[in-house]
């Protein structure tokens, strides 16, 4: 064990390289982003701004495009995350009870996690294609446009949800499965001696003992979902230089998409992008704090 007074220099050597890298690539950009956010009308090229204030935040919060982005992101977060967690929990329990082929099923469920997002986007574009898509032919739908220019908001959102839920299952299943396997078998044996029903075992043993894992998965999923961006581009992006990378009329733009758009918009309004990223940070912070408070009552370590 290192002691501060005696081994301070050893700790400094050990931490030095990491701290240096973090300073250059994390701390400095964060501080710079905060500064940029408060420089009114700050533009990157030339670095001009009109004093310090909340102007960029006002611009962001009154921009209908940002409000659209916030609405889309919220729908994604509050529908897809709970659904993914419930489904992955059920699948993890099911996988845990399967003896044969468990490895095979684990691999199958983990595949989306190791597959390239853009490749998955292409697959979904084929599955939901208007003319020859698998989805339309399975459900006997006549040329319903899901991802193309003729889609509607909820149709596009539906595909995005399916994609996000399916893509998000992999990691959660693995984490929850690891958690399930670490639960002491004695609890289940005791329950079986007492003649407890499966439902009761699940509700009183599995879920409470898995709660730290569920909390971890919930928090990371919420943070991840608030930062949704690549999946929208993978499903709706049509290549560089074209308008409508976030679906027709940019209807599915997300908060991160908004930030990225502002970074390189004409006039490089980095100040606005920085303000939007700070607003996103605050939202994520609040949601995570709420989860931590709730978890104090519900999570059993």
């Amino acid at each position, binding site marked *: 064990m290192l002691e501060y007074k005696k081994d301070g220099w050893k700790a400094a050597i050990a931490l030095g390289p990491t701290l240096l890298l973090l300073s250059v690539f994390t701390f400095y950009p964060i501080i710079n982003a905060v500064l940029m956010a408060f420089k009114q009308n700050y*533009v*990157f*090229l*030339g*670095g*001009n701004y009109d004093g310090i204030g909340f102007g960029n935040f006002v*611009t962001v919060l*009154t*921009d*209908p*495009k940002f409000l659209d982005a916030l609405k889309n992101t919220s729908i994604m977060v509050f529908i897809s995350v709970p659904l993914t967690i419930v489904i992955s929990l059920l699948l993890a329990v099911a996988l845990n009870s399967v003896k044969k082929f468990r490895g095979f099923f684990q691999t199958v469920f983990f595949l989306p996690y190791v597959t390239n997002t853009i490749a998955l986007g292409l697959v979904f574009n084929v599955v939901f294609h*208007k003319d020859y898509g698998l989805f339309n032919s399975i459900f006997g739908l006549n*040329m319903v*446009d899901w991802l*193309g*220019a*003729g889609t*509607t908001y909820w149709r596009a959102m539906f595909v995005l949800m399916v994609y996000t839920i399916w893509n998000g299952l992999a990691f959660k299943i693995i984490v929850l499965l690891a958690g399930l396997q670490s639960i002491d078998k004695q609890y289940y044996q005791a329950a079986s001696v007492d003649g407890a029903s499966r439902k009761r075992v699940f509700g009183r043993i599995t879920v409470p003992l898995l709660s730290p894992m569920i909390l971890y998965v919930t928090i990371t999923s919420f943070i991840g979902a608030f930062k949704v961006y690549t999946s929208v581009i993978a499903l709706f992006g*049509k*290549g*560089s*230089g*074209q*308008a*409508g990378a976030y679906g*027709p*009329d*940019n209807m599915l733009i997300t908060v991160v998409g908004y930030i990225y758009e502002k970074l*390189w*918009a*004409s*006039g*490089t309004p980095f100040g606005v992008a920085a303000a939007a990223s700070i607003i996103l940070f605050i939202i994520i912070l609040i949601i995570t704090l709420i989860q931590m408070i709730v978890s104090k009552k519900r999570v059993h370590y």
Partner: protein
Amino acid sequence: MKKFFIVLIMLFGLFALVGCGGNVIDKEFADLTEEVKTSSEEIKIKFRVPSGVISAALPNLIADFNVVYPNIKVELDAVSGGYKMVRQTTILDIQSTKAPTLVLGYPDHFAEYFSADAMIKLQDFISGPNGYTQTELDDFVQSYLDEGKNYDDEKPEDMYSLPFNKSTEVLIYNKTMFEAMKLKDDSIVIPKTWEELKTVTEKINTLVQAGELDEVITIAEGEKKPSELYAEGTFYPFAYDSAANGFITMTRQRGGGYTEKVNNGKGYIVFNSPENVAGLKYFKAENDAKRYAIAETFNDIYASNAFMALKTFMTVGSSAGVGHNIPEGDKFEIAVAEAPYLAAKPGNKYIIQQGTNVAILAQSTNKQRAAAWLLLKFLLQPEYTAKFAMATGGYLPVRKSAYETDDYAEYLTNPPIGKEGFSMAANVALNYLNKGYQFFVDPAFVGSSGVRDEVAALFTAIIVNDKDVEERLTKAYQTLGKAYQRPE
């Protein structure tokens, strides 16, 4: 005291160096062209272009330049990712003081560079000892030249960029199909106006629906006949490639207004006008009647795939993209004609001009600037702008006399194999110059490309997603925000 003087001298030196980088500079560097021309000192310059046809065509031309100026070494910096990445890379380079000497870009890119004092005034070179005479300037297509002006609010006539690779919009049509249609109904002609387009497309739809054109072109297995496409609702006789151009050209031809530039850093939107509302409703009605489409109607970013699949027989697209509309083998022949105008407003025969310009950036030495100017002047000679146009295919010469050079005249009348489409497009561009059409481009300002993106989204939302015209126009104004609206 001694130290004080040393500090003073160093400070002076620093200010002198800082003074070199900016839009406002002394004229001395313009006079350096003579020295650079005759010097044996090696001068390195970097020319940034998007990778593709331009970067492929330039090395040969630069080799010719080096025969005349062996001391000027040109590094061609081909950036992948199109103009978007050219702009982003250049912005980052300007910030880290590593900007190239020359860069291609759209006027709104230059408006941004200008706002950061990163461009030099070409006017000093133009009126310098190795500049252009008035006759030479008059030889440039005037509307191309105008894109280089209006950067400096105090001297709007001063030029900051010169036209380099220009293109325009043309009507590409299925020649085989039109010949067959004319035999069945001789009133089916290539439409010159929007009014004519309406009647012609009505007649085309009647023929297609009746299956009378199904046998004209042999289709491959798995492809659908025009009548089948019509029956499933995916046939439109006419399609516009670019939603943004479709909208902007409409505003010009109808006199409805689009943007108004205030200065380099500011401009207002004025496109919510009765004329434009009427125009949008007209095109929406044409779309509902299955006569008019845009590329997005076919779930695509260009209409060329639909054109080759016989889902449309006419498409307005860039002269630089004509080649994409030619089907493999001998499925059918294409031809190119002038894009339609509004017969009701014959004075507004407006045709959008596209393509980029070239500028010299300020993070360079005076000798590099002079060398860059010599390169520009060399490449913009009539025979070289013609050579560049022929090598790239769809780009057009920027000087009128270039059309009369021997090589280009031959290219127009007797094109080499594989360049026929581009040659036809170039002939149409020449017609635009000679037949009373007016090339236009709306003056750029910082943020003007954001307006272009928004009107592209607006036009698509109305034509493809059935959004209400007035509501979507209001939304566009809200999205662009107050900064784009003239204070009441």
